[in-house]
């Protein structure tokens, strides 16, 4: 941890300790506060039970499972190409990004690779999913902390990205576009120019949010030094994505592993922040959205010609074997452990979703914070309920 981080943490602990002493003197009674499952701050149906002492949380426990759909079981009775329909609905804000690791795992077991053009378009759509997902986060963040305007900007500009995804795939939220061996279709005419324009708009949106929200003193006061996660704790809880990088851990699966995707053909920065507080998590996501627009632009410049589908049989049987493929999804590390027995469908699929690990730290993190900080911390951890409950 850096010095700035330690100083923030110590002052935060000192302030809490002083309040706790005051609570003891005033003999305040404890109470149990139930947040959710239908609460706007819970992004779906997460329930939080918090035991309070005055304004402070003694312990808090998230209750998930209101939306459990049992995808791991359902994958066992589907064929491989049918599974993408299900896993689209895990993280519904960045659907296309959910399909990619599963398809890559199946391709790895079959020993095939998508042609270069398909890999490129996959990566472009993957980054567009990231922009659509994290773009909404940047607006939603403001709403949860009491600022209404950013969410209108976010919905306005996310619409451009959703239009692009719809234009290429036909589906706004659930593209179901990725196929074993390539993609369903090529890009439509005029899509590339349109995308370039939208990327410029999105960078302007990031600037707006940075001025409007990140430059706001109230926002800074409410996020700085709140919910600090040290790097070693983040790693042992398996936090991933911006949550991990905001704790100063330089780890990005786009750069740090080799996959048949096009990330190694572009230049991009992996942003990290040493503080590990709520501010750092939000700030890293803002930078990543900007970085994603640059990745898309570079990929559009270098889009190779060629087929978009490798030669695969119409009835796909995946050879016996096991494969683990994870990618850096908008929410963090999303991976599939696929076991095939040589049948039409998988024998077992373990879905490792980012939000499940990211939210499992919350009992540790929420202990001792103030009630309004619960919302800040949950907002900055950024989870999607479908990604927790699967």
């Amino acid at each position, binding site marked *: 941890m850096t010095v700035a981080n330690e100083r923030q943490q110590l002052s935060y602990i000192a302030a809490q300790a002083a309040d706790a002493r005051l609570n003891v003197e005033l003999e305040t009674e404890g109470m149990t506060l139930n947040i959710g499952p239908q609460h706007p701050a819970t992004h779906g149906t997460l329930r939080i039970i918090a035991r309070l002492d005055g304004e402070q949380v003694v312990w808090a426990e998230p209750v998930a499972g209101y939306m459990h759909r049992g995808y791991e079981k359902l994958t066992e009775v589907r*064929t491989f190409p049918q599974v993408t329909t299900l896993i689209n609905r895990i993280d519904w804000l960045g659907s296309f990004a959910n399909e990619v690791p599963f398809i890559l795992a199946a391709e*790895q077991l079959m020993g095939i690779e998508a042609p270069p053009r398909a890999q490129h378009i996959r990566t472009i759509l993957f980054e567009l999913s990231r922009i659509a997902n994290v773009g909404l986060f940047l607006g939603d963040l403001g709403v949860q902390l009491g600022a209404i305007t950013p969410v209108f900007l976010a919905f306005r500009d996310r619409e451009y990205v959703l239009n692009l995804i719809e234009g290429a795939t036909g589906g706004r939220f659930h593209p179901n576009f990725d196929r074993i061996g390539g993609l369903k279709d090529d890009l439509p005419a005029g899509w590339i120019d349109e995308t370039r324009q939208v990327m410029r708009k999105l960078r302007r949106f990031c600037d707006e949010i940075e001025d409007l929200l990140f430059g706001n003193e109230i926002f800074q006061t409410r996020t700085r030094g709140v919910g600090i996660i040290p790097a070693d704790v983040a790693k042992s809880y398996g936090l991933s994505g911006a949550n991990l990088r905001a704790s100063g851990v330089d780890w990005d699966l786009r750069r740090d592993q080799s996959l048949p995707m096009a990330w190694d053909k572009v230049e991009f920065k992996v942003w990290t922040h040493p503080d590990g507080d709520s501010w750092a998590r939000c700030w890293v996501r803002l930078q990543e959205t900007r970085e994603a627009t640059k990745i898309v632009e570079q990929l559009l410049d270098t889009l190779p010609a060629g087929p978009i589908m490798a030669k695969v049989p119409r009835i796909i049987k995946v050879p016996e074997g*096991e494969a683990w493929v994870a990618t850096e999804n908008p929410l963090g590390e999303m991976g599939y452990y696929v076991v095939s027995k040589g049948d*039409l469908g998988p024998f077992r699929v*373990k879905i490792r979703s980012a939000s499940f690990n990211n939210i499992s730290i919350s009992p540790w993190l929420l202990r001792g914070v103030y009630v309004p900080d619960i919302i800040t911390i949950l907002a900055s951890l950024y989870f999607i309920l479908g990604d927790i409950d699967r």
Partner: protein
Amino acid sequence: VDRLSDTTTETPALPGDALREGIIEDLRSAIGAQLLDTHLVPQRDLWVRVASEAWVAAATALKSQGFEYFCFLSAIDWLPSPYGKGEDDPSAPPEEPSPDKGAVKQGYTGGATRFQMLARVTDIRRHVGVTLKADVPDSLSMPTWIQVYAGANWHERETHEMFGIGFDGHPDLRHIYLPGEFEGFPMRKDFPLLSRMVKPWPGIVDVEPMPGGDDEEETVAES
């Protein structure tokens, strides 16, 4: 803001098989004969199977080697589903009754029991991950990983409710997803998927042969 931030552009070297073999040696020197089997897919990934008594010792040894990042923990039920998949390939010839039908057959790194633990940890500095397996003894009880990886808490709760595997030393094995009074363990292969039993899956048409189709000739070129 720029002063506080730290950015990186250089791409680190990706791990080679020599590194993975080194990991096997390090683990063997730490837990000895408790390391039962390894499986290395060149340039791709590493699997190790440890004895169930050494489940925690293996995690501790790996963590001290730098595998500080906890990825996931789960289990596999290797029993073939007694209900089939409801969508067997209609173009396939009727299946011959064979003596090993219904027999439990494990995947990479072998094994001897129906249930196997499955977990993955990652070394962030060396950019390499390891998948761990261990046979679950008949008592269906394993030691907990919480003392080594705090993130294992929820994963063990999920494994407990889905497979019925207990974790010694786990403070709180409540259900995460299922209602508290739910009976049975849904991810076990002998737990029927009721909706599939009352109505065959309409997606079966996806795998029916096309009339006059030449599916047989259209095989994967690379394989």
